[in-house]
């Protein structure tokens, strides 16, 4: 691995060099909430001053750039009873992600496992994922984050370069030769011993700030045993079955497909829409039978997929512990509390 340090002001130069030739997505302040706290969102930016690298967390993940909520899988030209299908993977330009936190990078790594590195890899995702250049940045842990418990507080791969704030300078970890070449455009130097010390200090400062913990010991097995647990019913009674949690989740990828005829009747399209396993029709089949008709069975399924099914398949959980689902849930259903209740046998 190659490490460098550079003066803080160089980052702006770096952005400006990149923005000439590339599209850049980064965290910006999109508004303020009732308590006057900033609301952050990932958007395309062309002015470095709009990027908020000290952002807490975005309400929504950057998912729409690699798993759009609506996406046409194919279009048809219909002509005299016959038809022609055109497939477009909806990616035609690379994108630079300027400032992703470790949790969101790990979310991509997890999605890669199921969408790229399993049978029937998904070209719509592959085409976008392979055209991402990712600049990671360290975060300030928030009270609702539990990424540390999920092993997602640091990113080991899945990015091109990763920067850490050392006070006066940035420390950068360079993972790809693309990043190495891009960085030739700014002034930087090899880190010295005192930079290493500063880096380790920054890391340990950050580590102190993780407050929320989830006990994941044997979780997959415990979930299996507690499948019939009463606590699921209690959480199910609270759940509104709105699907917001999946919307806000950087790793939720389930979807539905719908076909529609264009208004001129000469074309048609097949559209993929992200879905949520908490929505009522998720497992409904022909004849009207619904395999998960009750809210608690759907809510439970979401936890089983993330903390058990994915673990069985890939030896890691599908949750990065970003806490977004809990923050956006109108009923205040939060992962750490749900898991603690399953382990403890009762809802606190």
């Amino acid at each position, binding site marked *: 691995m190659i490490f460098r340090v550079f003066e803080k002001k160089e980052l702006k130069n770096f952005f400006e060099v990149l923005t*000439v*030739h*590339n599209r850049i997505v980064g965290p910006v302040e999109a508004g303020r909430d009732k308590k006057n706290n900033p609301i952050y969102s990932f958007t395309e930016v062309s002015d470095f001053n709009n990027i908020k690298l000290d952002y807490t967390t975005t309400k929504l993940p950057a998912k729409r750039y690699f798993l759009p909520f609506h996406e046409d*899988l*194919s279009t*048809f030209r*219909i002509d005299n009873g*016959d*038809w022609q*299908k055109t*497939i477009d*993977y909806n990616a035609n*330009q*690379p994108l*630079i992600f300027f400032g992703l936190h470790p949790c969101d990078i790990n979310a991509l790594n997890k999605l890669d496992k*199921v969408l790229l590195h*399993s*049978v*029937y*890899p*998904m*070209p*719509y995702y*592959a*085409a976008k994922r*392979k*055209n991402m250049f990712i600049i990671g940045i360290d975060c300030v842990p928030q009270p609702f984050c539990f990424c540390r418990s999920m092993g997602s507080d640091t990113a080991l791969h899945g990015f091109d370069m990763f920067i850490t704030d050392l006070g006066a300078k940035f420390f950068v970890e360079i993972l790809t030769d693309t990043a190495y*070449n891009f960085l030739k*455009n700014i002034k930087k130097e090899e880190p010295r011993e005192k930079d290493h010390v500063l880096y380790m200090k920054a890391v340990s400062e950050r580590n102190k700030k993780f407050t929320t913990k989830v006990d994941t010991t044997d979780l997959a097995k415990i979930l*299996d045993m507690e499948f019939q647990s009463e606590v699921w019913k209690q959480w199910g009674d609270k759940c509104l079955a709105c699907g917001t949690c999946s919307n806000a989740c950087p790793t939720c*990828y*389930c*979807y*539905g*497909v*719908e*076909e*529609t*005829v*264009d208004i001129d009747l000469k074309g*048609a399209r*097949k559209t993929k829409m992200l*879905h949520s*396993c908490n929505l009522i029709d*998720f*497992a*409904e*089949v*022909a*004849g009207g039978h619904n*395999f*998960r008709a009750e809210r608690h*069975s759907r809510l439970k399924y979401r936890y*089983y*997929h993330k903390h*058990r*099914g*994915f673990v*069985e*398949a890939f030896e890691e959980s599908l949750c990065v512990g970003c806490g977004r689902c809990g923050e956006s849930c109108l009923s205040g259903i939060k992962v750490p509390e749900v898991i603690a209740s399953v382990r403890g046998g009762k809802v606190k």
Partner: protein
Amino acid sequence: MKPELKFTDVISQQEKTQKRKNDLSSFEYTYRAEITSAYQLTDMETLYRLQIINPDERRRFTFIPGQFLMLEVPGIGEAPFSISSSPSIHGEVELCIRKAGNLTNYLSKIGRGAVVGIRGPFGTGFPMEEMHGQNILLIAGGLGLAPLRAPIAYVQENRSHFKEVNIIYGTKSPAHLLFTYQYDLWSKDDINLNIIVEKADPSWKGSVGMLTETLLKILTGRDDAFYSNTYAIVCGPPVMFKFVCSMLNKFHIPMQKMFVSLERRMHCGMGKCCRCNVGSTYTCLKGPVFDYWTVMNLKEAI
């Protein structure tokens, strides 16, 4: 060097020797297929014969009994259907489809000559070769006879490889019976046909009652060799195979020799949409055909 990212074309970069299961460009690819015949079986079900139009693709298209495919009508919808015909015919399949919604109602209105899209085949099948030399119970309730028709065809074509073969088929009323025109042929191939309806009409001379009653008669009083050398394939609504499989189990037919086909909602067939998950198992990849032991170990399976 100019700091500009180059666009990566994921399709052209992959190796050329990929199989369908790893090939990015086959994900959304549909074979164009023509409906060469549409034969109405009952008020609700029609049998469609589909032929893949491209001769090359037709030659390459093979499947094993129990697998399903995704049928697409542009602008109307796409849905999974079990292949209901002989696996030895390449590039031509029959699907027995019940009217249940948008796509299936639309299909019932278009006839011979229409062009549809198909993807697949997907999923697991019945391990027919493993069953060679054994007795077979082919058990279907209602529309379950559709997926069962593929193993039945296999058994007919390889009749000498099987010992005693029984079809046990139960349905609501005589008017609901599917594939009536084939019953004689099945019998001629020395396949015992046991049909039972829940409600008879004046013309009905056969058995009346539940499918499990017929099954009980067939199973009672056999020797141990029969029970330990018998495979069962069970297709039908979930409530049915619960009863059927526990009865088979009472007679000590091994759970690993009972196969069921699970139905779930499916939007991709390729382990991506998650709609078909039973617990954490993808029905489209690990199923739809499962042995009963596996089903017993799946959470929320039945």
